[in-house]
């Protein structure tokens, strides 16, 4: 192109020069023709001279023009042209000398500006490309981490992957990751370690007591330079909650550059979400496992029934029931139910009722069975024991007491001694009978099986019978016994039990009264609808401190023990039980050395209801 331009300029200059030369040659030839004519010889000579001078001047001018063109236009143009070619070839460092005329200088200047701008832009582009490549690598890391994290099955695996990715991204040699323990908010537990023996890292971390702890507390990266080793502690944060910390270590220099920290923090933040989910999941799994274990360890069958009556959840014991009795209806109806379910040889107490979640929404129907077969069996054994004791002890006593009566009723005359001996036998047989009765009574009450056979009972008659029966004993002890009753009507009572109650009170009073003393059995109406029975003595009395224990089973007062008064400590317990079973009240008043009085209030029978 430069060549062409110069060629064209040369051709153009040549044509102009030829045209000028031709013009001057024409002038010279015209002058000669004029000269031949001779008419104008002097003028022709002048014109010829002018033509020659003009031709020489034109040639010189033409040479000067050519030199000018080459020096100020063509050479700068060629320089710019070749530089432009180099620029086009990719060399942005190329520059041209700014020389020649104003226009070529301007052109060269503009070219240099252009080249300089291009170079700056290229440099910026290169920087941008480098940044872009770094970003691409980072995104690739994120992506890879994300994929691997998503594939991780549990917290430990997740923590290991997260730690590995962060270590690669940070160029760390080793590292550790601690995550929160859902059950213990105060401590973090080491979940992963790489490039270092896990034993070298603390098993537990507490917020605030180390650089790693500080990272948790401040939610910021904490860098520590220990000379031989650099550390970077990155908090693992989800929302505002720190769920863990990652510590990265690098031996020697350089330390982790601050410029990397933002990237690493972002990466840490990314893995935190997954880790947090894994922490929650593990916690939920653990809770579920605990619940499952507790449920399965529960010996009682437990199940949750859905709306269609199918088992939604159950424990091992319920599964066993289900296996043995497929399709058995354990759920029952709608509301709360408590009853007994008989399944084969076993009996279950059953509770069934609705279950609601914490929002009050109905989740189904809970069924809890409790195997009461053994309890039933023990109840049955207790019954058998009752029957056995009743029969085996009372049957021989029946013979003893019956034959004694037969002997005494016999018309045959017995010696005084024989009579006395028989009396002793009779007394002791009756005492033994009472003792057996008392023991059985207490056992029965214990078992919650006290049943009363209530009839219209003449309490005055019961008292009289008791006193009569006690009279021989009283006489032998040298104690007077007195009955003071007024007619009060009937009570609604069990004849045997009320008799037992009065016998016990009288027998107690006699036992604790010394020779020469007196026992009074009194009865009167109290307030129109109740009857008061009082058994008093002027015996030894009961120490105040012991009085509160008198109604306790097997309690025996210090006086009873020290004076070897016979008994097992059941008398007053039985009295109180019988009184309460008859809707009555009992109170005791006693003073040491003065005596004791027991008062029993019983409701009178409502005759209209009889």
């Amino acid at each position: 192109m430069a060549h062409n331009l110069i060629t064209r300029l040369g051709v153009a200059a040549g044509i102009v020069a030829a045209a000028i030369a031709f013009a001057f040659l024409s002038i010279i030839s015209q002058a000669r023709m004029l000269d031949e004519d001779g008419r104008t010889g002097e003028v022709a000579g002048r014109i010829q001279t002018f033509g020659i001078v003009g031709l020489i001047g034109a040639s010189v001018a033409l040479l000067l023009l050519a030199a000018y063109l080459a020096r100020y236009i063509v050479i700068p143009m060629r320089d710019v042209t070749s530089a432009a070619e180099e620029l086009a070839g990719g060399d942005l460092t190329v520059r041209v000398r700014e020389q020649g005329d104003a226009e070529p200088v301007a052109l060269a200047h503009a070219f240099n500006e252009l080249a300089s701008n291009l170079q700056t832009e290229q440099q910026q582009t290169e920087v941008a490309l480098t940044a872009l490549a770094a970003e691409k690598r980072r995104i690739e890391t994120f992506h890879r981490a994300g994929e691997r994290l998503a594939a991780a099955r549990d917290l430990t695996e997740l923590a290991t992957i997260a730690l590995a990715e962060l270590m690669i991204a940070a160029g760390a040699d080793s590292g550790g990751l601690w995550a929160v323990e859902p059950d213990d908010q105060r401590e973090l537990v080491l979940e992963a370690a790489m490039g270092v023996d896990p034993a070298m890292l603390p098993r537990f971390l507490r917020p605030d007591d180390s650089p790693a702890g500080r990272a948790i507390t401040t939610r910021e990266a904490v860098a520590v330079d220990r000379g031989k080793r650099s550390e970077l502690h990155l908090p693992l944060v989800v929302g505002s909650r720190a769920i863990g910390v990652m510590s990265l270590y690098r031996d020697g220099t350089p330390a982790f550059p601050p410029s990397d920290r933002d990237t690493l923090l972002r990466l840490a933040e990314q893995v935190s979400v997954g880790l947090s989910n894994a922490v929650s999941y593990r916690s939920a799994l653990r809770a579920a496992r605990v619940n499952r274990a507790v449920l399965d360890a529960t010996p009682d069958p437990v199940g949750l029934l859905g709306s269609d009556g199918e088992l939604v959840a159950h424990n091992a014991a319920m599964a066993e029931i289900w296996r043995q009795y497929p399709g058995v209806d354990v759920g029952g109806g709608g509301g709360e139910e408590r009853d007994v379910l008989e399944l084969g040889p076993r009996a279950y107490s059953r509770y069934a009722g609705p279950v609601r979640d914490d929002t009050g929404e109905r989740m189904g129907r809970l069924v809890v069975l409790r195997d009461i077969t053994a309890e039933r069996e023990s109840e049955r054994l207790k019954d058998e024991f009752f029957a056995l004791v009743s029969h085996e002890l009372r049957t021989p006593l029946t013979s003893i007491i019956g034959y004694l009566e037969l002997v005494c009723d016999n018309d045959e005359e017995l010696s005084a001694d024989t009579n006395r001996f028989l009396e002793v036998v009779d007394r002791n047989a009756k005492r033994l009978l009472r003792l057996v009765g008392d023991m059985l009574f207490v056992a029965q009450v214990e078992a919650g099986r006290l049943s009363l056979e209530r009839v219209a009972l003449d309490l005055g008659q019961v008292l009289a019978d008791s006193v009569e029966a006690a009279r021989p004993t009283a006489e032998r002890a040298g104690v007077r016994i007195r009955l003071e009753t007024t007619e009060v009507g009937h009570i609604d009572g069990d004849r045997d039990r009320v008799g037992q109650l009065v016998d016990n009170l009288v027998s107690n009073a006699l036992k604790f009264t010394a020779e020469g003393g007196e026992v009074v059995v009194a009865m009167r109406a109290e307030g129109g609808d109740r009857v008061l029975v009082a058994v008093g003595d002027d015996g030894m009395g009961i120490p105040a401190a012991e009085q509160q224990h008198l109604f306790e089973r097997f309690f025996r007062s210090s006086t009873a023990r020290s004076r070897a008064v016979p008994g097992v400590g059941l008398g007053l317990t039985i009295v109180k039980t019988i009184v309460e079973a008859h809707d009555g009240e009992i109170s005791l008043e006693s003073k040491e050395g003065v005596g004791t009085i027991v008062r029993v209030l019983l409701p009178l029978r409502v005759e209209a209801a009889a």
Partner: protein
Amino acid sequence: MSRVLVVDDDPDIVDLLRLRLELAGHTVRTASNGELGWEAILDEVPDLAVLDVSMPRLDGLSLTRRLRGHAETAGLPILVLTAAVQTADAENAIAAGATAYAKKPFSPKALALRVQAMLEDPGA
């Protein structure tokens, strides 16, 4: 002069009752268990039966039920003896068809009076 059958597996009790009831002027037959009692009744229906509850082979309550299911003995006065302390046992005796029951230990004299009363008024 009535015929009373006493059924109890305890020979002492049987003797005691026999002595007492004979003193009261009755003719007494005895048996030592329910099955033998049943055979004795089939042999000769008495005017009254005293049956112990707890006996081998056939207990008093089962015998009572069997007697009540038998035309000839459906109306036989039956006195059941029970050594149990629980009221439920007495109720069981009545439910089985006994006319009356007495708890062991009993006074032989009182029991003889009871038998007398039942013979005079079979409805009591």
